[in-house]
């Protein structure tokens, strides 16, 4: 009721606001006059003369004018009305100069759009909560900087083994629930039991029974996994992602309760998650299925992680009970961790291994950092962290340049209006009012620009997302602006409006009317009056230069990393990633399968050579192994915990991927399980472990010294990049797929067994590799319809994938740099033409006194070049300092790259010259007679 009354009042006020002031005044005047007349009559009737009665009535009534104002103030909002007046005035002025308005609005729209687009990304990645119940109660154990599977101590723990998770869960009562889940989604092949369709590739994630309860996620259909589903001997169940359910299963409700074959293993699908839920991590490949954690041993019977207490592969997020203090809980869980480590590492299970015991002695250095789990697991964010900060900085710079431009335009305008302003001041206008008018005009431009900028931001964000996630199945970010983003855009808009409106407003109000009117509007402007414009210009040049240098550095770095020698060839080659499920492929069957695989692949017409291995170049896989070398008593690791990478490969591997053999021979078809065990090493391995000797004929092994004689080194190949292309080369050794040693340590036995399973297939073909996708796919399906084919890519695509982020960041920075250059040029042009217009008489006089065209042109150019030179002088040290912050994004480029700096200087100078030359020529064509006559 109260609100309705308030709304009614608001409506009446608004109606009054839009009614004309004149009519209001007239009406009030009329009713008050009636009052006075009637009162005068009354007094007159009492015998007072007419004139005196009039006065008396007037006295009793009070000050008409004041009362009318009071009534007026009561009826509307005086301040709002003034604003409305200023807005109308501002709009009129903007309409009168469409050139200015369009330039300013476009400039700002670009600036605000650029910022809002980047903010949309930052908001989605950093600020948005998971779509779950009370996300602020969620806390993550660890900062999730690492993922995957790790053995050994992490120092700052993020990954947990199942036994460690259980220990923490059962000893930390401050959590109402503590869930664990696989740190990286896993590839699975899934087909409907009894269905005809071949298996398809999906992502899945093992989650603990309390996972959905912890997040407070209610099922969309069916039910979610509960603790009853996640016990030893309970049959495996899975929950399907709503998106997967609707896009790949046509939202078919009958699949709930149905059994599917996951890697050939029966799993019951029990429910569908709600549409908004995408899992615990914002990522381009969210899990399609969540599977009960206790099913993990069934999926990998030979090398299950589930019971391993020293293999860390789970993340943990918990819901704190109300009132629990995260700092105290952090101390508590860290204590539990140390206790657990002491019990397991130091006190027991490593019986007698002095080396390991000594390394794990130091449990005091181990700790857990509690991080807010509001936004889920963080790791995807680290990937874009530097890039986003850079882009935010860059877009802020563009916006500043845009602001400077508009400030300049407004300044020029308000200077041109100085006479008018002076007259208004002289007539008694309040300075505050004049300031407010100029500010209003600025804000109007800002709001128009902001509205248009939102549209640009929406389009821009969509384009950025398409670029950034071009190979993904799912774009986890919505480009449509949320309320927060709208708020951000509005805040930026208002702020910019004030920033670029303030200086002109101040200057407009400062003029002394008498002086100004005497000088006839400052037509004989001095250099000094151009000072604010020129300082803004210096700033623009500085920012623009910094941006250009940044763009240059990133572009050069990207070219460096894209066109580097990768150590393999990309032309005419493609690779497939597959997953051999261990239940269907026991080790005894592998030899036969590999033989059939090789036969089938070489039968494909157009295939020159085929090979298969654990890993392909640049596909992100790899495993490290400590090595021992015969004849070397102690073998150093590469760094704190780094060891060389192991890759088991088939015959023809090196020729298929195009890695050159430097010495000796490659692994070939004679290297079988039963022949002499051999190894091929790469150059950096040779250089690190055999700095002064010939490695060929020497022996090496995996793990401790007793294995040092296992493999004879028969060849050296060139270095190739297997991991991040911007990282240094990683010493690598290659072994034949099926040669194995005997280890007394069961963990090592298991480890060795898993390396016999290939994950990658490579083909070298004649013609376009893209055309071989289908034949490779059908060849593999023919071998085994259950085989999970994760991806088939050409080598070029695989390389390209590595640079998605860098290309995106570089492209955007480049775009923004270009934008900045254009904006700065426009600004320069504006200032130059304005200064020419103002100095018309001066130029006319000079020409009348005999100055030639060339002299006039050079005079104008000189005036503009001074701020340019100053801007560059300021910009160079700032760019040098700023470049230090992007070193993490640079590859093969020094921050002080002289070429980049010179190109930036040249580009700016050229643009400046062009921008200034046009008004300079105009100045030179001034007719002295005419110029002087207008004085």
């Amino acid at each position, binding site marked *: 009721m109260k609100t309705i009354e308030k709304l009614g009042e608001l409506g009446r006020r608004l109606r009054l606001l839009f009614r004309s002031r004149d009519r209001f005044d007239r009406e009030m005047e009329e009713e008050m006059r009636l009052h006075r007349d009637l009162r005068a009559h009354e007094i007159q009737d009492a015998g007072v003369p007419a004139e005196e009665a009039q006065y008396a009535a007037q006295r009793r009534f009070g*000050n008409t004018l004041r009362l009318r104002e009071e009534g007026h103030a009561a*009826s509307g909002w005086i301040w709002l009305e003034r604003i409305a007046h200023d807005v109308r005035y501002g709009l009129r002025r903007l309409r009168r100069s469409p050139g200015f308005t369009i330039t300013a609005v476009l400039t700002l729209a670009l600036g605000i759009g650029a910022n809002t687009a980047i903010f949309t990304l930052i908001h989605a990645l950093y600020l948005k909560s998971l779509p779950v119940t009370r996300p602020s109660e969620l806390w993550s154990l660890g900062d999730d900087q690492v993922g995957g599977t790790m053995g050994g101590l992490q120092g700052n723990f993020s990954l947990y083994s199942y036994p460690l998770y259980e220990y923490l869960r059962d000893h930390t009562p401050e959590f109402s629930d503590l869930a664990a889940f696989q740190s990286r989604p896993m590839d699975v092949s899934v087909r409907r039991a009894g269905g005809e369709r071949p298996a398809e590739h999906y992502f899945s994630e093992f989650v603990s029974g309390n996972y959905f309860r912890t997040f407070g996620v209610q099922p969309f259909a069916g039910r979610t996994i509960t603790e009853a589903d996640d016990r030893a001997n309970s049959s495996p169940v899975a929950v399907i992602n709503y998106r997967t359910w609707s896009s790949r299963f046509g939202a078919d409700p009958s699949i709930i309760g149905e059994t599917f074959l996951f890697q050939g293993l029966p799993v019951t699908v029990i429910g569908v998650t709600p549409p908004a839920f995408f899992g615990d991590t914002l990522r381009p490949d969210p899990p399609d299925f969540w599977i009960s954690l206790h099913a993990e041993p069934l999926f990998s019977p030979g090398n299950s992680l589930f019971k391993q207490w020293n293999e860390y592969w789970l993340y943990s997020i918990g819901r704190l009970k109300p009132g629990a203090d995260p700092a105290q809980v952090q101390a508590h869980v860290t204590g539990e961790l140390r206790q657990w480590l002491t019990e397991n590492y130091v006190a027991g299970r490593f019986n007698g291994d002095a080396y390991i015991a000594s390394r794990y002695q130091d449990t005091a250095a181990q700790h857990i950092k509690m991080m807010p789990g509001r936004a889920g697991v963080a790791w995807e964010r680290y990937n874009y962290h530097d890039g986003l900060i850079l882009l935010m900085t860059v877009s802020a710079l563009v916006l500043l340049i845009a602001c400077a431009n508009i400030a300049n335009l407004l300044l020029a305008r308000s200077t041109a209006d100085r006479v008018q302003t002076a007259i208004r001041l002289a007539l008694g206008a309040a300075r505050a009012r004049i300031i407010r008018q100029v500010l209003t005009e600025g804000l109007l431009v800002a709001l128009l620009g902001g509205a248009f900028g939102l549209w640009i931001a929406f389009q821009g964000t969509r384009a950025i997302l398409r670029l950034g996630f071009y190979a993904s199945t799912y774009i986890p970010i919505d480009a449509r602006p949320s309320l927060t983003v709208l708020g951000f855009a509005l805040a930026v808009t208002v702020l910019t409006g004030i920033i670029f409106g303030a200086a002109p407003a101040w200057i407009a109000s400062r003029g002394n009317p008498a002086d100004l009117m005497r000088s006839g509007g400052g037509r004989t402007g001095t250099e000094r009056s151009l000072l604010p414009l020129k300082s803004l210009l210096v700033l623009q040049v500085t920012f623009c230069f910094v941006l250009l240098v940044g763009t240059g550095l990133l572009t050069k770095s990207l070219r460096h990393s894209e066109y580097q020698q990768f150590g393999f060839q990309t032309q005419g080659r493609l690779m497939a990633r597959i997953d051999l499920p261990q239940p269907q492929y026991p080790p005894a069957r592998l030899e036969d399968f590999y033989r059939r695989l090789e036969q089938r692949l070489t039968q494909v017409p157009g295939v020159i050579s085929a090979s298969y291995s654990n890993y392909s170049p640049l596909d992100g896989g790899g495993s490290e192994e400590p090595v021992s070398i015969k004849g070397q008593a102690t073998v150093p690791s590469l760094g704190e915990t780094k060891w060389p990478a192991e890759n088991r490969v088939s015959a023809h591997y090196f020729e298929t991927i195009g890695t050159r053999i430097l010495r000796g021979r490659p692994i070939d078809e004679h290297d079988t399980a039963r022949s002499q065990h051999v190894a091929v090493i790469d150059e950096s391995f040779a250089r690190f472990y055999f700095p002064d000797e010939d490695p060929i004929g020497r022996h090496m092994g995996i793990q401790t010294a007793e294995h040092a004689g296992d493999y004879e080194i028969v060849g050296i190949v060139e270095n190739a990049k297997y991991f991040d292309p911007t990282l240094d080369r990683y010493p690598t050794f290659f072994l034949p797929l099926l040669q194995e040693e005997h280890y007394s340590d069961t963990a090592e036995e298991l480890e060795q067994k898993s390396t016999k399973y290939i994950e990658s297939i490579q083909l070298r073909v004649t013609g376009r590799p893209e055309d071989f996708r289908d034949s490779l796919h059908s060849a593999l399906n023919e071998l085994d319809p259950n085989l999970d084919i994760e991806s088939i890519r050409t080598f070029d695509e695989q390389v390209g994938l590595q640079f998605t982020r860098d290309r995106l960041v570089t492209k955007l920075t480049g775009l923004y740099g270009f934008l900045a250059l254009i904006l700065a040029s426009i600004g320069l042009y504006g200032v130059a033409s304005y200064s020419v217009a103002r100095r018309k008489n001066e130029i006319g006089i000079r020409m009348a006194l005999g100055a030639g065209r060339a002299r006039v042109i050079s005079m104008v150019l000189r005036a503009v070049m001074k701020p340019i030179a100053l801007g560059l002088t300021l910009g160079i040290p700032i760019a040098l300092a700023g470049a230090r912050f992007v070193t993490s994004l640079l590859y093969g480029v020094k921050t002080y790259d002289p070429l980049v700096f010179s190109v930036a200087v040249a580009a700016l100078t050229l643009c400046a010259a062009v921008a200034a030359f046009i008004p300079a020529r105009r100045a030179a064509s001034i007719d002295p007679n005419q110029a002087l006559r207008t004085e």
Partner: protein
Amino acid sequence: MPRDEIPPGTLYMLILRMLERYGELHGFEIAKAIEQISRDILQVEEGSLYPALQRMLVKGWVKARWGTTAENRRARYYRLTPVGKKQLAVELEQFERVMGAVARVIQPA
């Protein structure tokens, strides 16, 4: 005869009450009505009537229309709205409460 200014804050109440009693009135009639009924004791500061009426219009307590007086002059006539009626009840109750309290305080013991 001495005249007393109306107590502050009661102007709205007086106007509302007059409109309730007489239906439609223009400004001068309201002022006259207050004077007459109070037997010339209460005197409205005449001009201040009009800003007050504007405020009451905005609050929706009264409605106005233009009409003509008996002498055939244009006048703005005000009348009570349902909201105004409710407001009058609120103000009366408040006024009585305050006056009752004041009376109790100054009553000889």
